[in-house]
């Protein structure tokens, strides 16, 4: 028997657990439609692997985990995937989320992959793989994926099974311990095997005598598993409170129980692990308490994940007068914005209060500083201070008062004589702080990206500047070479002048020597011009005609005749040109090629002229530059004469 410590604070609200007949499990009939939200766990939502129109069987994978804190989802029954779309989910915000809609075919046939196994024959890795593949998440409400929890690298010496269930009204864990103690114990032994040398404590509150008796009987022959009965006090089921109660130690701020060598798992989760490993069954159903005076058939029901809450409440004969439905217990649950939403893996209770069961809260009055909230706070915070700070939006200061350690148990609000909605203030402040932290993270990220970009732009600019400098240096060298060649007495200006003079002379001589062409005979150039003019005229007329046709102008007919006439003329001109050219032996393709050659040579010369070296460059550089320039100029002249010869073969030959 281990020594119990106790934890500070806590309250004793009316339990009302007998209302839901703990220990009697009823299986709900198969609903026609199931809606499976993709984000049931904490962490990133899963990704659907089925699409509309797919036929699935019970237990088949329908959504795959994304990242390490995510879990697979499976079809709760066989049927047809009717849709993958955004739908409202069971969340206080009433927001939508991507869900898979499944229309049950009523056959409820298991998928072929679902096979039982003997864990004795499986390796530890295979057991872990079966747990992972079953998509099991913490069923006490937190929704933390079990495989991620088991993958801890911290040394664990105690496995703590949480069967406390301290919240009033709820009896789902009580029921599962009574009806399936065998599954829980087998699941526990599996976890103990995976964790190595550990002892196990099953903690149960003393208001569940039947569950205690059943679990004690089931573990009587195992010295490593101990059932510990703890006194009833809310919130003794909180992970941190339970650990303090059993060990006297506190989980460090911001830490997890594994820091103390303890792994805390809910009993329903352990049962799901048993089902996954022994039977191969994924997490597709759970036990949910439906209770409150607003339902005529309260009790514990085995429901499929994805069953719509209005269907469940119909089956439990909800009173027509009931005006609200709470998901979770009376202390930590929240009022559902709509009951047309699906139940998820973490939903342990549906509470439908009767009309006079939870009277609407009186409006909050001023805080009278009675300090009762401080007395009951299990986290030893200062709820009053936190309230003032949250009310005045002093978020920096409220963090110094350890708001983030608040477990939102609601004990402070429960005892507040002024009926101040304290927890709602804390939830608001926590939300804003998380949001701000997120924004700060994004701002830091944006800053890094901005700075990286600035640096890149500066680097690019510097590189450009360097390239420019390198070019300038090369040009200076070329200039120097030019100077050097000038010094040799080879004056380029005089040479160029001489070349021009020679050219003029030659042209004169050619003009006098060549026979003038007979005026009657059409000239090549003239023919070309005529053809081009005819083409342009035709184009203009065609455009005018198109415009007129588009606007239904009265002159359209006239324009039509003009266009026809011009088409003929243009054709005639083109024909005449072609005939003349063929007579002359002009090859248009060759001319084009020659033109390209000439343009290339011309560009080279111009480029070189620009690159003339600086005056102060060395002689050798000048000389080299001059040689290159001369060679380029020679090339240009050759290209020019070649082009001329092609263009005017008659003139050349004559």
């Amino acid at each position, binding site marked *: 028997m281990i020594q119990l410590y106790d934890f500070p604070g806590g309250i004793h*609200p009316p339990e009302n657990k007998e209302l839901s007949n703990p220990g009697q499990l009823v299986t709900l009939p198969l609903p026609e439609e199931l809606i499976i939200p993709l*984000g049931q766990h904490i962490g990133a939502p899963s990704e659907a692997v089925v699409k509309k129109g797919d036929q699935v069987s019970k237990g088949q994978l329908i959504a795959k985990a994304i990242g390490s804190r995510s879990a697979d989802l499976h079809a709760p029954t066989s049927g047809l995937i009717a849709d993958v779309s955004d739908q409202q*989910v069971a*969340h*206080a*915000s009433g*927001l939508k*989320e991507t869900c898979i809609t499944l229309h049950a075919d009523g056959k409820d046939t298991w998928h072929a992959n679902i096979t039982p196994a003997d864990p004795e024959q499986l390796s530890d890795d295979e057991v872990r793989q079966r747990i992972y593949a079953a998509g099991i998440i913490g069923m006490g409400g937190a929704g933390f994926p079990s495989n991620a929890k088991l993958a801890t690298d911290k040394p664990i010496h105690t496995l703590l099974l949480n069967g406390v269930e301290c919240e*009033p009204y709820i009896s789902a864990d009580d029921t599962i311990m009574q009806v399936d103690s065998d599954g829980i114990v087998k699941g526990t032994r599996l976890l103990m095997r995976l964790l190595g040398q550990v002892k196990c404590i099953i903690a149960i509150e003393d208001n569940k005598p039947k569950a205690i008796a059943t679990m004690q009987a089931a573990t009587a022959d195992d010295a490593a598993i101990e059932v510990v009965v703890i006194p009833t006090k809310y919130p003794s089921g909180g992970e941190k409170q339970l650990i303090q109660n059993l060990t006297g130690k506190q989980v460090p701020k911001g830490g997890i129980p594994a820091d103390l060598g303890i792994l805390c798992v809910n009993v329903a989760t352990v049962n799901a692990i048993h089902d996954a490993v022994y039977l191969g069954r994924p997490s597709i159903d759970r036990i949910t308490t439906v209770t409150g005076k607003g339902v005529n058939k309260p009790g514990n029901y085995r429901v499929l994940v994805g069953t719509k809450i209005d269907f469940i409440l119909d089956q439990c004969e909800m009173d027509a007068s009931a005006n*609200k439905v*709470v998901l979770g217990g*009376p*202390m*930590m*649950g*929240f*009022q559902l914005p709509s009951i047309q939403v699906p139940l998820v893996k973490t939903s342990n209770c549906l509470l439908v*209060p009767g009309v006079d069961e*939870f*009277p*609407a*809260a*009186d*409006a*909050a*009055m*001023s805080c009278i500083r009675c300090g009762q909230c401080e007395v009951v706070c299990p986290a030893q915070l200062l709820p009053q201070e936190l309230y003032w700070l949250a*009310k005045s939006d002093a978020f920096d200061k409220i963090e110094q008062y350890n708001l983030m350690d608040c477990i939102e148990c*609601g004990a402070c*609000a*429960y005892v*507040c004589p002024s*009926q101040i*909605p*304290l*927890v*709602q*203030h804390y*939830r*608001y402040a*926590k*939300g*804003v702080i*998380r*949001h701000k932290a*997120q*924004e700060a993270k*994004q*701002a*830091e*990220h*944006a*800053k890094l*990206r*901005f*700075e*990286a*970009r*600035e640096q890149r732009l500066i680097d690019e600019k510097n590189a450009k500047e360097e390239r420019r400098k390198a070019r300038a240096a090369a040009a200076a060298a070329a200039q120097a070479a030019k100077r050097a060649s000038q010094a040799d007495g080879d004056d380029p200006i005089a040479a160029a002048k001489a070349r021009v003079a020679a050219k003029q002379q030659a042209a004169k001589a050619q003009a006098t020597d060549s026979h003038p062409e007979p005026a009657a005979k059409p000239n090549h150039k003239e023919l070309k011009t005529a053809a081009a003019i005819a083409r342009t005229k035709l184009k203009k007329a065609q455009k005018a005609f198109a415009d007129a046709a588009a606007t239904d102008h009265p002159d359209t007919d006239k324009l039509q005749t003009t266009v026809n006439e011009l088409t003929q003329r243009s054709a005639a001109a083109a024909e005449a040109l072609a005939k003349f050219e063929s007579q002359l032996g002009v090859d248009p393709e060759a001319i084009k090629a020659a033109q390209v050659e000439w343009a290339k040579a011309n560009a080279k010369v111009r480029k070189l002229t620009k690159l003339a070296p600086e005056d102060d460059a060395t002689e050798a550089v000048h000389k080299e530059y001059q040689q290159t320039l001369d060679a380029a100029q020679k090339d240009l002249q050759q290209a020019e004469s070649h082009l001329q010869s092609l263009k005017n073969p008659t003139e050349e030959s004559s």
Partner: protein
Amino acid sequence: MSILIYAILSLTVMALIFGAILGYAAKRFKVEGNPIVDQINELLPQTQCGQCGHPGCKPYAEAIANQTDPINRCPPGGEATIKALADLLDVEVLPLDAEAGVDSIRKIAYIREDECIGCTKCIQACPVDAILGAAKLMHTVIVDECTGCDLCVEPCPVDCIDMLPIEVTKQSWHWHKPDNLIATDRQPNLTVTGEDAA
């Protein structure tokens, strides 16, 4: 007389020694840059939107540190940033300068991809490289990187960029502030069920 000389001498020697120590410390522990600029920059929202009239948050932080610009020219930061800056610099809180723009909800740029002509102008405008694309190919915004600065909207020649408010998801949603009720101002149905149990 000799006492006077000894006193002057010893004081001079001490002054030299401490001067040397201080001089060495000033060199050894020299702080690069202006630390107040970094502190101010930490408080700015880093949208790099330029609505303050500076090309980015850091230049504005420098302007504030040099006291050439008031602290109220950052619309994306809004009142919260002004308050934080006022706290840091120990100056008075000013209302947001309307000239710089209005405090609005945070938005994210989305490119209507069918209409994008691939001109790359928005890519050049984006201060955080959050737009992906190449010349004559469709561009798109990397939503996670976008700061909602608006700078890409103006250069777009075909106006295909929309600034849309960030959608609230189940993950980003948080509880609103409870109504500040007093007893004479009765409202039914407070949603925290903790009280309901009472």
